[in-house]
């Protein structure tokens, strides 16, 4: 099937699924074409003298701006730090650009900025540069934030999908789907109790811990944001030409999130996270990685969710709780709640 650019951009093009990918490939990749970008990883690798730097950027347009567990400021800081960390980089500094709608409350802005400060302090990464723009009322939804970050990739660290081999373990760092459900609940007043909180968290220290504890075992990591675990695994499977087999019963999902997803007709495998990472690792290092993840408060529920296998054609499969199996495809567009 031949795909071409759509006439107009739809919300689904920003959903983090297959359509987002198509837009990136057909427009951005085609025009900006260069080897660092072509890898389409969470952050790009750029040589800096004899060193290697990781560089990334991300914009945050979440609505509402505050939700249980985090706010736009916290996830803007954490998201960029995590994009650097999953590349194996030590984040050095980040920037913060604000687009503010005329009339926005200064008190609210101050609260969000303080939340950024505390997330950055927790991660030990300074916010070293920034930008402020104000647009006319109605031209932005309250507040948009862009953050960029730069990190140093230590010598010897080289995480690429080429390293993934059959038999490698697929580790998930904790309960999936909490962020997406918390935001949806806050946005639509679904009436769920606030027991589901966003997982927005900086993961750089936790990740540095596992890279140190099991050097060489970690093959590849991905920050699990929009599109969830399912979409990330599909992309990795395509990139490395190998299949991933997940065990439904091994995938960590909190009870409250699972219930909310069932009620809304969502699949937690596709729901967004802001503080979770998937780790592809050699079987030999799994025990060390797990015990290290569990030392961090952001990795307590870490678990091996599946493994890499060789198939005729790369795909992601899920062995279901009752002993069946099914395919996992990338997210198509937006996740929509069901009707009955």
């Amino acid at each position, binding site marked *: *099937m031949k795909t071409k650019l759509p006439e*107009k951009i*739809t*919300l*689904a093009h920003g959903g983090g699924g*297959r*359509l987002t990918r198509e837009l990136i490939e057909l427009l951005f990749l085609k025009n900006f074409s260069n080897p660092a970008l072509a890898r389409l990883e969470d952050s790009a690798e750029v040589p800096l003298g004899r060193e290697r730097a990781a560089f990334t950027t991300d914009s945050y347009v979440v609505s509402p701006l505050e939700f249980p567990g985090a706010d736009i400021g916290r996830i803007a800081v954490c998201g960029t730090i995590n994009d650097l960390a999953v590349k194996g980089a030590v984040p050095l500094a980040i920037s913060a650009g604000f687009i503010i709608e005329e009339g926005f409350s200064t008190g609210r802005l101050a609260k969000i900025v303080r939340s950024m400060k505390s997330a950055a302090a927790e991660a030990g990464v300074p916010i070293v540069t920034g930008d402020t723009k104000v647009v006319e009322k109605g031209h932005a939804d309250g507040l948009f934030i862009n953050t960029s970050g730069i990190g140093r990739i230590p010598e010897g660290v080289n995480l690429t999908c080429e390293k993934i081999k059959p038999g490698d373990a697929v580790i998930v760092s904790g309960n999936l789907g909490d962020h997406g459900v918390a935001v949806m609940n806050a946005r*639509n*007043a*679904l009436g769920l109790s606030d027991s589901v909180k966003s997982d927005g968290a900086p993961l750089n220290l936790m990740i540095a811990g596992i890279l140190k504890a099991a050097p060489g075992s970690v093959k590849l990591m991905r920050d699990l944001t929009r599109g969830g675990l399912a979409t990330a695994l599909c992309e990795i499977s395509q990139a490395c030409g190998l299949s991933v087999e997940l065990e439904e*019963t091994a995938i960590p999902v909190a*009870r409250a999130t699972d*219930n909310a997803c069932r009620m*809304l*007709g969502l*699949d937690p495998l596709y729901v967004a996270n802001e503080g979770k990472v998937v780790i592809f690792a050699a079987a030999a290092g799994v025990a060390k990685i797990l015990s290290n993840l569990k030392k961090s408060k952001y990795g307590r529920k870490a678990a091996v969710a599946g493994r890499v296998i060789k198939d005729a054609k790369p795909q992601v499969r*899920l*062995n*279901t*709780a*009752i*002993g*069946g*199996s*099914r*395919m996992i*495809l990338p997210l*198509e*567009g937006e996740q*929509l*709640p*069901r*009707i*009955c």
Partner: protein
Amino acid sequence: MKKTLNYRIRVSPAKKNRFSSPLWRDKGLAARALEDMQALTVQLGRLVGQRPLGRHLQRIAGRLGKTINIMEVCGTHTMAIASSGMRRLFPAGLKMLSGPGCPVCVTSQGDIDRVLALAARPEVTLATFGDMLKVKGSSGFDLNRMRENGSDIRVVYSPLDALAYARSNPLRQVVFVGVGFETTAPLIAASVLRAREGKIANFSVIPLFKLVPPALKLLLSDPKNDISGFLLPGHVSAIIGVRPYQFVAREYNVPCVVTGFEPLDILAGINMLLRQMVRGRAEVEDEYSRVVKKNGNPTALRLMAKVFNPADASWRAIGKVKKSGLCLNADYLSFDAIRRFKIVYKEAPEPSGCLCGAILMGKAQPPACRLFAKSCTPSSAVGPCMVSSEGACAAWYKYGG
């Protein structure tokens, strides 16, 4: 004869565990249920193959062919069957058909066009469940496209949200798209009652409701259909109870089991159907008794009766079926958006090549459609069975057969 195992799940009396027992996904129990299913299928095959046919089988013999065709009549079942991957574990000779259980899918093309016509009016804010956004009208436009072009279309999770929006935006005409079965109708009835009480005149509903029992009748009255048994929808039955299905067993001799939505519920429901068939019986049984009561939910039924009347409804690829839907009754007619905005109904053809109609009637499975997974995918769907997350085509596409 192999003694059948009793693996039906006993629900813990502690109420808080009623809806979340881990047993409902237990692999060991599932394996036993599947063993049972295998044994029952073989036994039934032997019984049906015998000549002369056992006397006790004669009542249901007309419905038993080479394959046992079990139809689920609920989109949530379709999704549960696909997402648990159970189809691959079923014995040969047992086939699951998806019936007209997805509300968006059964809505006729002409009615979809009416929804789009309402959305196009500048004074209207259309409030809808998310599933409707990507269903194309005969012009090729869907609500998503109309939203990009400036129509005011909002996704809501409950008709009460739409009502609240109407209350706080008195200058907008808020129209709620009432697509759904007996599960959705009571809540919409409640929102209409509240609109009347609160004198919210700028709220109205497009009544496109469908009823499950008439749909079953429609399926059964087609001589080309060979449905051996029905897995009946748990949610709908929680509202209407089990009595409205009695005619299926009595008049058409087809076994029925009201079934829940956990994978083990479905395995249990299928086995209950197979057991009825082996015994030559056709009854309406309730597997989902932890939720479904014989008389349904009287409060919900009262709400519906207060606001709605049975009415003719248009079904995709079938046309108008007598008393198969609901309309607002004389007291609440002023909340009918179709009347308020005088939107006329025009028959519209199905998208060319689309097999949705045949799939909804259990006459084909999605891969039989030549558009399936080729020109018709969830992100650019031709027919509604691929659009709706509960549609049979979407389930097959997403999870594999």
